[in-house]
């Protein structure tokens, strides 16, 4: 069921069959078929607009005069150009501390994730490993059973992880779902002949994994790397429950304070005094903060997007 197997077959079938249906469609396309085509095109357009427009609106609202935004004058293009929100954001040290923290947590966390998950997934993909089913069961159970919030909290407390930045990195080292995806990839996409050849050349499992398997697995490393990265970047819960010190807060908690607790004008941006500070300025900051915090992921996204179908499908087949 791997994609590599499917695609050539589909391609062959298509090149052979393509001319025929085209001609046939031209002849037999009934009014009903036309109607279906039009309905489909309309629905697709509507869906694309429904997804894109809110994001586009955030962007144009962030650079518009907020009075015009709030009175409904800003609809398709920015009006009353204003970078006020962004200016305030650049002055706000909370956001940049949060940003730096989140980058640290994300980079360290994702690195540990990959270093722990990939070798384990590789080991589990080796059929000759006696007992791998038991280990797999040991991992899978945790997808359905957990200790719950308080026992976890008490465990972290006893391990000294409360209010410690390592709480973002260490406990989430293995995600079982990602482990299964990686294992399935190694099982289905790395030809067994390579292992035979490596054995003849005297490579140990370590050598085989590092010199042969890893270089062939860029697709899956990109996909689960992105999964892990996004999870760290968007992690809100860990900071909320386990971190007290403001200077250790990740970006998402700072965002919560600014966006949802209406603390847009307190603290950090010292240039303005809180009192008499209108709603429109707060909103302007909010739109800007959303853009500033979401942009990095949306920039990385198109580069990794091509691997998604593959990654999700591998996980689905054996998950």
């Amino acid at each position: 069921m791997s994609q590599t197997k499917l695609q050539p077959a589909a391609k062959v079938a298509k090149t052979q069959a393509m001319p025929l249906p085209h001609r046939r469609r031209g002849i037999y396309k009934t009014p009903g078929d036309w109607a279906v085509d039009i309905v489909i095109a309309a629905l697709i357009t509507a869906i694309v607009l429904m997804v894109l427009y809110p994001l586009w609106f955030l962007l144009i609202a962030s650079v518009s005069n907020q009075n015009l935004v709030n009175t409904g004058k800003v609809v398709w293009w920015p009006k009353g150009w204003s970078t006020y929100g962004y200016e305030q954001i650049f002055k706000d040290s909370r956001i940049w501390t949060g940003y730096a923290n989140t980058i640290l947590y994300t980079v360290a966390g994702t690195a540990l994730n990959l270093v722990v998950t990939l070798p384990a997934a590789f080991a589990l993909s080796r059929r000759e490993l006696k007992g791998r089913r038991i280990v797999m069961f040991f991992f899978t159970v945790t997808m359905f059973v957990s200790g719950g919030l308080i026992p976890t909290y008490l465990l972290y407390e006893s391990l000294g992880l409360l209010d410690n930045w390592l709480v973002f990195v260490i406990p989430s080292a293995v995600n079982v779902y990602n482990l299964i995806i990686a294992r399935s990839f190694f099982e289905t996409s790395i030809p067994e002949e390579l292992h035979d050849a490596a054995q003849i050349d005297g490579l140990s499992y370590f050598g085989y994994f590092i010199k042969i398997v890893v270089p062939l697995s860029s697709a899956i490393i990109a996909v689960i790397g992105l999964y892990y990265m996004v999870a760290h970047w968007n992690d809100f819960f860990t900071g909320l429950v386990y971190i007290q010190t403001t200077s250790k807060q990740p970006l998402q908690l700072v965002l919560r304070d600014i966006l949802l607790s209406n603390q847009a004008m307190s603290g950090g941006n010292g240039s303005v005094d809180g009192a008499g500070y209108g709603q429109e300025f707060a909103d302007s900051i909010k739109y800007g903060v959303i853009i500033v915090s979401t942009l990095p992921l949306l920039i990385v996204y198109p580069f990794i997007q091509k691997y998604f179908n593959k990654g999700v499908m591998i996980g689905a087949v054996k998950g």
Partner: protein
Amino acid sequence: MTLTTSSITPNEPNTGPAPTAASSPKPTWLQSAKRYWQLWAMLLPAVIFVAIFSYGPMYGIQLAFRRFDITKGLTGGDWVGFAYFRQFFSNPQFWPIMRNTVVISLWTLVMGFIAPILLALLINQIHSRRVKGFVQTVTYMPHFISVVVIVSMINLFLTPSTGILTRALAVFGLHDVNLLGSTGAFPMLYWMSEVWQHVGWNSIIYLAALSSVDLALYEAAKIDGAGRLQLIRYVDLPTILPTAGILLILNMGHVLGVGFEKVYLMQNPLNLPASEVISTYTYKMGILQNQFSYSTAIGLFNMAINFVMLVVANQISKKVSDTSVF
């Protein structure tokens, strides 16, 4: 023990099941472990992390049956049996919380299940590869936006009188609605934003299944006189049904597992009667009010229900459609 180890030493270690190993056809556990020690070494870190951070807290579940005493630690408190469960069941908030949890999660479950199937069937109808790729790229995108940002988008767009969605609703004759403060609208806001964010992402799996359809099947159906809609009904839909079944079962295991983060962030004093769910209540009792044992008991109750739902859904599906997760 020493006998078995000595019997393997003549064989070269780390060479896997080479032909020479055929002399000992059934290697014992210890032999196997010795030969594949490198694989075990690669597995070990993951096992340790999961043992500590996933199984470790499970040991603490006994707290649900003990009166937590900070001086005596996790296991030192007096055994009280099901007292904390009874406390939860007899709480006047018990039924409202259960109802909110079930209402929100059932809506999300049903809509979040149907929408990706429809989207996948629709995207599959696009002939142009480029358009298809574009639509996929666009619809996957919101999946990567953080919960905090999604909730603040809801708040900004639905701000009474100034929000852009509030204005759009006014065009349709719904003036001065305050959906943010409405208890009736909460489940709808929740599942709609959930669908908006994840429908594209969740459709990937169905698109993958649809890409495996044998093109000859379409040709055969066309020759039999099937139109576009009939192709969808009789070829596409049956193709994705097994996948859909498995996903539905897995989702059933989360019926009481409404995500904490989003509900918690969407809560405000006005909608609280409709937005207090088990996970937010557990957090408030446990972390904010330090009722450790009580909170653990609620968490365990929640997990037990989820597990039962998963097993029941699995058994039903096994009987009805031969699809099952385990």
